[in-house]
């Protein structure tokens, strides 16, 4: 029994990490169709933000919460910079975006290596997050519970912003029909930039959260990028609901398969399941309802 509970929590935890990494991507890739391979490096930027903030603020608790804020702003600012300098020139050339942002990602990785060094750096977790909580015989690390809560909060905040705020309405309008939105007086340029800011900012938040469980190294973003893309594709492009379900489903599937087999086989099985799933539902769990003529 405690194995099932333990793996269920592990699955939820993996899912929440996937979700955090994928949430920003579901905006930039799902809503805008930009294949941003530098998304992983925005995650990395968030991680190093947590490291730098901790050098300044010695209280681990204080630095964690400040990092979450600063990480969002820094990730967002990098996203805006990328959008304004490169991505805006190639909205109609998705393959070029892929290559260019991949290159940007490599440059950012090397930059991090030059600035912070190649070995991983340690971001200390607050004392109250060390150790685990025993739930029905299974031990769940507190850091993972924190990330779970953070992911849920990020989803709630993002969906509120998308549903209730004028900005969210503008984003949705531009995604559904760019021309009509522009005719109605919405600046699609400004909306694109805002969307990129939020999407990349969420990557920064994910990066801060990841410092609690793993290494903070120049390659940290790479390890999550592919998984984040899978979550967005399986969930259905631009569908936050889909991303949430896909992230937790993949997390739980992965944890149970890995428990009964091995990590490598679990990865293969998860990929096979995704391939089969996409044969049946190429549009993912949920499809965007668009009124666009294109």
């Amino acid at each position, binding site marked *: 029994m405690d*194995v099932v509970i333990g793996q269920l929590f592990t699955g939820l935890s*993996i899912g929440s990490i996937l979700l955090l990494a994928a949430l920003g991507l579901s905006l930039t890739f799902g809503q805008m169709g930009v294949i941003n391979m530098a998304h992983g490096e925005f995650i990395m930027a968030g991680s190093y933000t947590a490291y730098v903030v901790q050098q300044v603020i010695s209280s681990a608790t204080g630095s964690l919460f400040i990092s979450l804020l600063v990480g969002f702003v820094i990730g967002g600012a990098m996203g805006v910079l990328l959008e304004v300098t490169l991505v805006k020139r190639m909205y109609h050339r998705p393959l070029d975006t892929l290559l260019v942002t991949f290159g940007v990602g490599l440059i950012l990785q090397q930059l991090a290596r030059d600035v912070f060094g190649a070995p*991983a750096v340690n971001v200390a977790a607050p004392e109250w997050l060390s150790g685990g909580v025993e739930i029905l015989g299974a031990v769940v690390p507190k850091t993972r519970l924190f990330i779970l809560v953070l992911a849920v909060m990020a989803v709630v905040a993002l969906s509120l912003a998308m549903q209730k705020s004028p900005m969210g309405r503008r984003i949705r309008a531009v995604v559904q029909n760019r021309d009509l939105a522009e005719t109605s007086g919405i600046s699609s340029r400004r909306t694109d930039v805002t969307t990129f800011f939020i999407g990349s900012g969420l990557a920064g938040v994910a990066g801060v959260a990841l410092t609690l469980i793993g*290494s903070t190294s120049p390659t*940290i973003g790479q390890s999550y990028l592919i998984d984040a893309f899978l979550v967005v594709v399986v969930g259905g492009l631009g569908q936050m609901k889909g991303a949430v379900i896909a992230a937790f489903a993949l997390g739980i599937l992965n944890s149970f398969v890995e428990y009964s087999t091995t*990590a490598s086989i679990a990865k293969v099985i998860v990929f096979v399941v995704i391939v089969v799933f996409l044969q049946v539902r190429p549009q993912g769990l949920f499809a965007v309802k668009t009124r666009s003529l294109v």
Partner: protein
Amino acid sequence: MRTFSQRALAVPTVLAAIGLVLTGCGSKASDTAGESTAASCVDTSGDTIKVGSLNSLSGTMAISEVTVRDSIALAVDEINNSGGVLGKKIQVVAEDGASEPTVFAEKAEKLISSDCVAAVFGGWTSSSRKAMLPVFEDNNSLLYYPVQYEGLEDSKNTFYTGATTNQQIVPALDYLKEKGVKSLYLVGSDYVFPQTANRIIKAYAEANGIEIKGEDYTPLGSTDFSTIVNKVRSADADAVFNTLNGDSNVAFFREYANVGLKPADMPVVSVSIAEEEVGGIGVQNIEGQLTAWNYYQTVDTPENKKFVDAYKARYGANKPTSDPMEAAYTSVYLWKNTVEKAKSFATEDVQDNADGVTFAAPEGLVTIDGSNHHITKTARIGEIRGDGLIYTVWDSGTPIQPDPYLKSYPWAEALGS
């Protein structure tokens, strides 16, 4: 008129084609010539002699390999400042293997054939070494490989200056057995070294009545260990034998500490975590865990004091030294001593004169065994303490003779070659 113009066109076309074929042959001929003389393209006429340094400066292995490049550079500078090798200054050509075995092979080829280096120092993962091996054999050049590895290999073109299994893994198992460990859980990265190391561990365990409670591999660079740690926790072995590489260790030890597993109850013995990784993992997450190596920064020899001081003076007081760094540093000196004994930079002369060459290394005296190109090494079990350094809790006393095929161990017979 029409026929003429066709002919007029045909003649230059044919000529051009012949020309192309000829130049093609020409360049091919010169290529082959270049390859066949690759071994002797090493230029010994000038005041300098080139050597290669080939390490991952990017990718998942950069965390470890950058420090190796740094200590190679340190050894080279020390040698240059004391007069060089056979009167020549050493010039290092540094290349990035990018954590990709194929890149290692390409860069090795480049170092040998176009930079014409006399020897190459580097490589870390066994897959990078396996990828480079044919390149060094085909070009008859020399690789000095500074990292502990899984054994079961020897090549006249490679000098193995890290530990082979009987100088690291077997002593670690002996130590655990002596401490009363009756069962083990094996965790490793999914590639050559952990798989082979675990085959050896299982053979040892079977012969010594140690139960293997589980065996798990994760893809290299994997950072989610929640499931594996759950498995380890419920298996309740006496100790964990860890052959993970690179960044994965950070996530593994954080998870291990966070679910409440303590070194006092279930110690983890690691064979590839060195001093520089402890900082990234966070000392509080790994304090009290064990490692098996031949060298720690805390080793108390005059040679080591000199090495540590020189390294810190050059790269920063907070930069620790580690086993592969020490082995890389030692490699350069072993090459120098062999070249001076041979009075030649040529591959064959270095090979013929290698047997018995010694160096008073930071870890203690090491000697090249000419029969398998490995070196004698002192085994040390260390404990990671609160200051982030590793302290010897047991050592073999004298250097252990290398035995890459474990021929002197009856239980290892089934492993084959």
